[in-house]
């Protein structure tokens, strides 16, 4: 299993796992900085609140792989622009959580492909190659698996709390008093 040397503080601020989700960890400051500085698709992402266009693109690719279009039901992460929905919630998070999410995206984009012997950054890979990378992160255990779980939780929680998904899951939504809806 590859070893990743991470600053202790970033391991700690980490994130979002399984039950508690919100951001995966591993802020690799240097890589994160490079990612933050990158430019892409500015016109399509002008309204982002926290993520950079590059981060948005990576998160979009992750979300699309975690929750693809089709399968048990048609709706997928791309159909609802899940990355934008997640971005819209980030201003409510405390800074350490956002740092963790940024680190997780940076790790996935820049370093995870190698775990599955794929060449190129994560967001440039085909759908099946991206799935192979996520599987490899899980199989690697340790930090890559923790990043996987953090990002999965981030995507799954924000997807299945979206009203548009409830018809497929059978969730009937909040039970508020009529005047509170």
């Amino acid at each position: 299993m590859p070893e990743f040397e991470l600053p202790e503080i970033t391991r700690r601020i980490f994130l979002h796992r399984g039950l508690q989700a919100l951001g995966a960890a591993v802020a690799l400051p240097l890589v994160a900085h490079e990612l933050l500085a990158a430019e892409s698709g500015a016109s399509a992402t002008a309204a982002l609140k926290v993520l950079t266009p590059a981060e948005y693109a990576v998160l979009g690719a992750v979300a699309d792989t975690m929750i693809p279009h089709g399968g048990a039901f048609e709706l997928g992460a791309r159909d609802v622009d899940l990355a934008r929905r997640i971005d819209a919630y980030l201003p409510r998070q405390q800074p350490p959580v956002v740092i963790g999410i940024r680190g997780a995206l940076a790790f996935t984009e820049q370093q995870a492909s190698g775990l599955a012997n794929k060449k190129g950054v994560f967001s440039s890979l085909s759908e099946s190659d991206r799935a192979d990378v996520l599987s490899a992160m899980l199989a690697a255990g340790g930090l890559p698996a923790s990043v996987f779980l953090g990002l999965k939780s981030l995507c799954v929680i924000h997807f299945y709390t979206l009203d548009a998904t409830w018809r497929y899951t059978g969730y009937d939504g909040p039970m508020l008093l009529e005047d509170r809806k």
Partner: protein
Amino acid sequence: MIVQGSEITKPLALRTHTVVVGSGPGGGVAAYHLAAAGVDTIVLEEGGRHVAAEFNQREEDMRPMLYRDGGSQMTSDGMVAVLQGSCLGGGSVVNVSDCVPIPGEVLAHWHKLVGTTDVNEAALEESYRRVQKSLNVKPNNKSLLNRNNLLLSETATKLGWKSHVMHSNRKGCVGSGYCMVGCSYDARLGTNLTYLPWAVDKGATIYSDVRCDRLEKLGGSKYRVHATVLERGSRNARLPLTIECERVVLAASSIHTPAILMRSGFGAGLPQLGKNLTLQPQLGVIGIFDKHQDIVHWRGAPQSVAVHEFDDNSAEHGLGGFRFEGIGGLVGVIQALMPGFGSEHKRFATQLRQMSVTQLLVPDQPSGEITYQWTDDGRVLPKIDYVMQDEWKQRLMLGMHKLGQLLFESGAKEVAFAHQSFPVIKSPDELSKIEQFQIAPGLTVLNSAHNQGTCRMGLTADTSVVDQNLKVHGLDNVYVMDASIMPTSAATHTMIPIMVMADRAVHRMLDS
């Protein structure tokens, strides 16, 4: 009076008799009884003040509002999610309302372990009476028991296993099921609806969005509390706030009370400070039933039945064994528990209504330690190191096996453990696969809602942080009244134990 941070526009320098840090179960009880006794009292709460009208039953909105780090706080190895309520009312606003006393065996264990002589069932009796009356503690109304919890009790009966309907602090509950994200109906009687408003009625002042940073010892056993007014949401520092006082009651949780004592420079004489952490990690277990079974785990009282057949409490080791309790209410989080991703995960997601969700609760022994760093603006960054003991792992695996047995007996066609790669079990014969269950960060999804023990109670500063009156060893007039004082795990749910210990301590304080 309740003052929210946004209402503070300039640095404040205040005076009072007693400062209570934290407004959860311990701080709320302390604040009320102090104010009721005529003590000039100020309560500081780092989180925001929120009311039922804001609780919209959407976890994506409520978790950042009501939980520390939006519910994403983890142990340093990423193994266990450590949940902390962080709002006015603290954990009493976001728990599932279970009201459980400290078992007698645990009190006996504390006597053996740390030498407590004044903490026994008789000494706590009056406090139980007061707390339970204040919170309307009663068995859950049977109309609130959902299919998820009834499956547990019915199947336990079938197997000859012991189970019971749990007590709760509800009043007027409609069974919406969103206890963990704030009750929209004000039906769960947390400190936000009881002790805190009662304290205000008696003259206490509560400041929300204010973080206590450290205590400065002044002459004559007085203290200056150094605090910071925060911006709501980001919790960035806005303004300084100081309070000169005669006495401080720390009730900021097992995670943050030690941070205040350490940053105050009091750690040198307290070698146990931040140590002896218990997390009582829990594992989510999901049963998937046939389509005609409409379980709908998110309605009703989420956690109302406990299967306690395998409890193993004793004076030798305190809380032991394992138990099963229904859980539900956070559909996004529960979807995230299911293994895998992509199309496989979507298949599970469509079976939400047919899922039963159970917590496998396995009490642990103290085996963790918290150390701290602080950012330049005073934000606390706890490093929660926790060692999972082999004996605990064995009980977890045995519990998984027994719970799997129960779920198949109840009609489940598949059983999934909260693990990202462990295969879904499709028959009782496959339960033997549990022997290969890997407990590892990123794979196993464990959570802790009952962290305790970092300022343990005992007789001396060598072995503990506070004495039997919950006063910090070696410091006049500084007390701790939260879950951190528990020498070992007090109970399977800690709200009532915290409140009872605080009630006892504050009455002793006032009596003296």
